[in-house]
């Protein structure tokens, strides 16, 4: 089954994937806030995050991950569309968004526009 593999070391933070996603899902409209993929920035690095399942309640304990000497907010990398976080929620209707692996045969628009190889379609 094909999957999207994310290699954050290659991400340049150009957000072309966000534009691609919103163009593909909302006709003739570009708005990164309506995209099902968002690029998070932490210090010097960028992390693409693909929208996952909807949860109707926020986590009770907020997680932090420590890698080396840097502390990362787990919320930023969480794929869920949750009430705590204003991401992956359609701003006008409030409907939660989730990646639908668009394109037939699966050739997600974000992967096609990602030129650096940070997003890659892999079979396994």
């Amino acid at each position: 089954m094909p999957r999207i593999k994310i290699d954050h070391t290659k991400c340049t933070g150009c957000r072309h994937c966000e534009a691609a996603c919103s163009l593909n899902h909302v006709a003739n409209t570009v708005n990164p806030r309506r995209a099902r993929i968002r690029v998070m920035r932490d210090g010097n690095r960028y992390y693409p995050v693909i929208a996952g399942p909807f949860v109707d309640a926020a986590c009770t304990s907020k997680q932090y991950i420590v890698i080396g000497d840097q502390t990362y907010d787990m919320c930023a990398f969480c794929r869920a569309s949750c009430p705590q976080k204003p991401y992956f929620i359609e701003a006008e209707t409030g409907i939660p968004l989730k990646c639908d692996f668009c394109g037939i045969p699966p050739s997600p628009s974000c992967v096609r526009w990602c030129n650096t190889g940070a997003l890659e379609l892999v079979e396994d």
Partner: protein
Amino acid sequence: MNGWIGRCLRVNLTDGKHQVEKLDTDLLEKYLGGRGLGVKIFADEVDPNIDPLSPENKLIFCSGPLVGTGAITGASCNVITKSSLTQTLACAKMRGHFGAELKYAGFDIVIIEGQSEAPVILSIKDDKVKLIPGLEYWGRSTAETEELFKKNLDDPWIARETYLVSIGPAGEKLLPLANLVNDRFLSVGGAGIGAVMGAKNLKAVAVKGQHSLQVADGSRFVRVINTLINKLNSAPLTSQSMSQWGTAFLVGLCYQKGILPRNNFRSTSQPLKNIGTEALNSAFALRGRGCFACPIACIKKADVKYSVFEGKGMVPTYLAIGSLGFNCGISDLSAIGVMSMLCGEMGLDPVATGGNFATVMELVEKKAVTPEELKIDISFGNADSMIEAIRLISTKKGYARRLGQGGMAISESFNMPEIFMGVKGLSLAPFDPRAIQGMGLHFATCNYGPHHLYGYTFIDELLNVHENLDPLETQGKASLVKRYQDTSAVVDSLGLCNWPLMGLKFNNYVPMVNSCLGTNYKADDLLSIGERIWNIERIYNMKAGFNMGHDTLPERFFKEPIPDGPAEGQISHVKEMLPEYYQLRGWSEQGEPGLEE
């Protein structure tokens, strides 16, 4: 409206009021947006003879119609004002994500008028526009300002999506060398603009938005972009050189052709081994960073190899390496990196700052002034004292504050105006015009002073992408310069970047523009818009007192042949090419466009 938003925000800092105006469709189609629209509005509203630092001057931020739509490299926002360094119209290109965010906030253009009494920050969050007291940010570096502003927002989610453009201490002190810095470290590249913003007491502009942009024909637009990305990937310059090293890859090439100037344009041969891309690789761990929707990602960040760069450093570009480095006799890449980073933090323009110091260094060498008098040992090749001097001039501290007035003012104050290597008050970008004739003609005629980004003829003269031209030849260069100047005006107006032209033809842009905007432009229509914009700028400058006499280069390039290197013995032939250039532009022999345009 497709592509465009059609809304203009006008903020008056004197009384703190703002209003939203509708933009006329005819005006948008005639001037596109970005540089074109901004220049048109500025020329209509602002008297050419005002003092740039007075409240009558306006500061215009204008995004192009393709910005934020996902059109490749559609990211740039142009800043238009009257520059305090050159006294001409100034138009600087802001890269990064600010331009796109401005569109998402619902505005094509922001016009800032008047002058605030106390320091303020303009915050635009969709329709919520307000002026925030900026006293606690005053005196801080650009990176600190951004960090503190985001911290003060409380909500980390909003902070993540807020983009900021600010001035550093240099702009606050009204230094003519100052420019703006956005997205933490991207230099906006227009000297003198920072001082205008500083005079208005405006520390920063912050934007965040969540509006949608409309595209005329989404499915065609997506197809066109897929093709363009493939085209960029099959071109060696855009897919490899630019992506890997940014513009710094030009250093080696320019060196081989004798274009890279050294010691204030008095030599082109470098007695150095450590130039070029390999040295860059070993001095910095490179990491690409893209402006909005950019498949090339030519901005290179220094990863944490050196602690001094941690989280903020940008690997020096060709401009920084040439201007701050080799032209000042400095060849240590990590020292150049530190200087380029300092320029970003202090809000100084690297080209103007480099040219400024090269002038001082030649003054010292010619014994017009002694290091004892300056109280700082500035001389060719002395990196440490130059780093120190950059700090001193930007905060106007110490004796070195005299040195921050721009190369022209300094050379005139010592009665040696002939050693200033610049046109219209701006220092030359690091291309020796004797060894690349077309660029020389562009430097002499450019409305904003000698900056290569307003007419990148080196794409054909040096890189031979579309045409195989000899840089030393003068034949056909006038039409080349005109074509590239018009192209740059259109590309800036659309809000695109110029680097894809290293792999694409200008014609390749046309389907992207039409499918996005729903228009029927042909390539020639767009180029004639470019010519119209160029003429408006020219007429504005002429009203401000510039004439044919300013379309020239420093005397050194006509009198002193290049003494060494591959282009040895060459002088500049600008004066011979100028009449042909005027004729091609349809101007009079005195270089005056018809005033009715």
